């Protein structure tokens, strides 16, 4: 069997699984899996660029995804004028002040002669600056958060179309990646991993605790949508008429219609990302990246600026994760900072990349769809399996209850087993790098 035949077959199998869900469960479920699969595929491509093509071990995916989500709020929500007048400018002033303090400390370090004086001066600037910053920043934050905390209590966004948030999410993630890459990319594999893991946690802590920016754990609900609301469709005479023309009841027609709308948008983004990534990889740029991944020392000796290239691909991959994060938050319709957990947003994406095939973008796409499908479907299948296993046991037996209650935990178990099986028997993934 040739490679392309095998790959087509693999995609066909995953497509078949999803279509089967459509027949056995519902087309809404199937379409939802497709939509999240598209987003997952984009995330997987982002990680694949970093890992598969540059060997960068980024375990901070969650942080970039969350920044994309933040972008959605900042771009699309309406501004809260009361909050702005309560302390908006002061908060921004405080942030600028904070940045200036760090710059001042940097200047002190670079200008003063090396020695105890320098350390003392830098420490004095930082410590004094910290209190100054807090003195400006804290009251403004308190003022903003006091504005109707149950409903707003934050600055809101810019009130722009939500689709704009996708590129903005990418840019925000790219900005963070630049900052992180500048400092942490010098570290080697495991250290980089833990450092990015830690940075992602810090980003989430900021999202969770800076209520003036994100409403924190109180969540931002009701983000605008790029597609119509189902209710509006159901209330539109024209739509209902068209639906009955198809022979579908309006509720179903509207839910499917909205999901298809998302599918089209997501597919466009995925196609764009995939095409750009493939073009880059099939050109001297991709060759250079592979050289760097194969042997950094030799690539450096052959005139390639490895540090700069690592930074570039780190930013690129993170930006893609940011875009996917913004898309996901748009689909969810809300920003829930406490929902960002490494297990779901970092490790699961890694499973997608490894299972799909690191170093191959189509592999990443396949992995994104397959793993997301399993993540969702293992739950009902697991329950069915447990019911089957326990069918012979007497009703109410402790073991039976225990097993059925534990069925929900099949999900993690399955992810682990799939990951290990693929790593063992097809270590380079289902669609390996050519």
């Amino acid at each position: 069997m040739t490679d392309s035949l095998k790959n087509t077959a693999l995609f066909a199998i995953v497509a078949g699984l999803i279509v089967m869900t459509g027949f056995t469960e519902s087309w809404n479920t199937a379409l939802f899996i497709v939509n999240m699969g598209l987003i997952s595929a984009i995330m997987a491509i982002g990680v694949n660029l970093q890992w598969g093509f540059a060997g960068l071990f980024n375990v901070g995916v969650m942080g970039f995804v969350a920044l994309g989500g933040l972008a959605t709020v900042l771009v699309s929500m309406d501004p809260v004028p009361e909050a702005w007048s309560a302390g908006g400018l002061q908060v921004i002033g405080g942030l600028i002040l904070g940045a200036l303090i760090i710059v001042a400390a940097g200047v002190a370090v670079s200008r003063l002669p090396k020695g105890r004086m320098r350390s003392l001066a830098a420490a004095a600037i930082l410590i004094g600056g910290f209190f100054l910053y807090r003195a400006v920043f804290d009251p403004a934050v308190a003022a903003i958060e006091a504005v109707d905390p149950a409903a707003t209590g934050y600055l809101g966004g810019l009130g722009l179309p939500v689709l704009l948030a996708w590129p903005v999410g990418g840019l925000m993630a790219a900005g963070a990646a630049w900052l992180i890459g500048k400092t942490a990319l010098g570290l080697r594999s495991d250290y980089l991993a833990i450092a990015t893991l830690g940075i992602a946690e810090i980003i989430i802590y900021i999202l969770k605790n800076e209520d003036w920016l994100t409403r924190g754990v109180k969540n931002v609900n009701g983000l605008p949508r790029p597609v119509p609301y189902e209710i509006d469709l159901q209330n539109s005479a024209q739509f209902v008429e068209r639906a009955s023309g198809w022979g579908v009841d309006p509720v179903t027609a509207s839910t499917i219609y909205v999901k298809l709308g998302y599918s089209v948008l997501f597919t466009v983004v995925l196609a764009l990302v995939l095409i750009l990534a493939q073009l880059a990889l099939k050109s001297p740029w991709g060759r250079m990246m592979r050289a760097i991944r194969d042997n950094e020392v030799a690539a450096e000796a052959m005139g390639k600026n490895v540090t700069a290239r690592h930074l570039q691909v780190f930013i690129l991959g993170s930006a893609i994760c940011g875009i996917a994060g913004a898309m996901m938050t748009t689909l969810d319709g809300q920003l829930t900072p406490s929902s960002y957990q490494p297990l779901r947003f970092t490790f699961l994406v890694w499973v997608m990349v490894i299972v799909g095939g690191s170093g191959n973008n189509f592999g990443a796409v396949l992995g994104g769809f397959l793993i997301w499908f399993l993540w969702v479907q293992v739950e009902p299948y697991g329950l069915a399996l447990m019911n089957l296993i326990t069918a012979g046991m007497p009703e109410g037996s402790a073991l039976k209850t225990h097993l059925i209650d534990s069925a929900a935990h099949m999900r993690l178990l399955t992810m682990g087993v799939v990951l290990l099986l693929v790593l063992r028997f097809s270590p380079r993934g289902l669609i390996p790098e050519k």
Partner: protein
Amino acid sequence: MIVVDEIHKHFGGFRAVDGASLSIEEGSITGLIGPNGAGKTTLFNVIAGVLQPTSGRVTMAGDDITGLPPHDLFHKGLLRTFQIAHEFSSMSCRENLMMVPGNQSGETLWNTWFGRKRIADEERALRAKADEVLEFLTIEHLADHKAGQVSGGQKKLLELGRTMMVDARIVFLDEVGAGVNRTLLNTIGDAILRLNKERNYTFVVIEHDMDFIGKICDPVICMAEGKVLAQGTLDEIKANEQVIEAYLGTGLKNKEQVGA
């Protein structure tokens, strides 16, 4: 061409290079010999920018190049090979060569999306050049083989070939003969001599095979315990008493240290 001035490189208390000074004439093939642990490779790595010297200065044609990163040195025309071949294993031999030239327009992301035509033209020229080099090295039959799967000697040739993809001014060869059979070593030696004559490459060669050194190198520099002991033709070096003692003495001393 290259002047090394009082380079020290210490690892903790261990002085790998201990005040080495030497100069390399343009157009020469300089051999660098010395017992194991003499600091040859460390000095190489300091010159090539892989390691920062503890103190000292390296200049190239009068410019201070101390501590410049390897990719900057590459663009100044200073290239190197490695003791253990550093091929790009998942790429074909041809690709190993094609990646070398700097400032390819296809290395800019923007061009990969919007400058396809220019890239295609450049690639054609690069490919032709790479095939030329492979032919020069008599390994044209390996063009499409993965570099990770060819023999050790062929990898060494490939590394030498990489230096031919650009106009190098000086090439450092680190134990080019290690693990290479006699026939292939002769091929490498021939290639070095030809490059030196035809393209006026300057070479610095670390090697243990004295026959090989004798055949291609002049002058020869001998190092021991991080210092330069002597410089001259191979015969002069072989006759130098300090050198003889160093080869015998440090050999023993090193063994004791290893045993401790």
